[in-house]
């Protein structure tokens, strides 16, 4: 089995959760989200972020507004919607349960 592939699959599964988590603290630009996710090593290549961001926006979990920038064209400024916050709370619970389950199996 391809180890790298399994690891990548694990990361991809939690990426959506992490995006919502980052935005729950404050609204920010895509590049800020990337920075945090890279620091936490959840994301390896930046391209993975964009289809997810768009999908979450289309699902109503987040929204963006255009922020003017002195150095160039306007940039998207993302924030969580109320639906996004509910969704995140749900995922928080799921995550805790998942961690408990896996630890139970690992440490038996």
């Amino acid at each position, binding site marked *: 089995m391809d180890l790298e592939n399994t690891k990548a699959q694990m990361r991809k599964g939690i990426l959506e959760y992490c995006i919502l988590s980052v935005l729950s603290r404050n609204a920010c630009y895509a590049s800020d989200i990337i920075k945090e996710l890279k620091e936490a090593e959840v994301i390896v*290549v*930046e391209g993975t972020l964009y*289809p997810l961001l768009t*999908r979450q926006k289309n699902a109503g979990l987040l929204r963006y507004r255009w922020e003017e920038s002195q150095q*160039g064209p306007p*940039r998207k400024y993302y924030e969580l919607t109320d639906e996004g916050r509910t969704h995140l709370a749900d995922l928080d619970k799921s995550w805790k349960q998942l961690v408990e389950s896996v630890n139970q199996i690992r440490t038996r």
Partner: protein
Amino acid sequence: MKITVSINLGGYSFDIDEDAYAELKRYLRNLELHFAGEESSSEILSDIETRMAELFRTKITSYKQVINIEDVRQAMSIMGTPEDISDNDGPSAGEKFSSPGYHRMYRDTEHRIIGGVCSGMGAYWNIDPLIVRIIFVVLALGGGIGVLVYLILYIVLPEAKTTAQKIEMKGNPVNIHNIKDSVKKEFDSVRKNMKL
């Protein structure tokens, strides 16, 4: 000295070497194909372009005014290839572009003994070509009909030359994913042979 191209990437203007431009164009085109099945594909691509423009802007200084091929390759490795980005929840464009699994019989000249007829038939039915060969030999011994059938098939069945044909021979859908796998396998087997 090189020719440069002037591009608009994500709303920013860049001067970029001609060869770097060709590579960037190819990369963006691959991403476009990859996301073609997705809703909002143009929005995703636009976001990616914007991000790449941000990366390129950090490369431009008063000493370096042109984006070169190293910059493009570095940006590509940061953003990731379509395979790296590929996710399984969204409809994969690779699947969308596959021919609907035409299952055709070809002559498999790569694995042939004489003309690849038995290999090709084995590939089509997913059985060991040896079984097909035995059947032919038996038919040939029993009055020569096997030879005639073989010759007819040799003339009628086309040779599987392209990678796409080789994939179709086995009945798999021809998409970017499978083509990539096939080419990779061939490359690996050539490499193994060269290692002696």
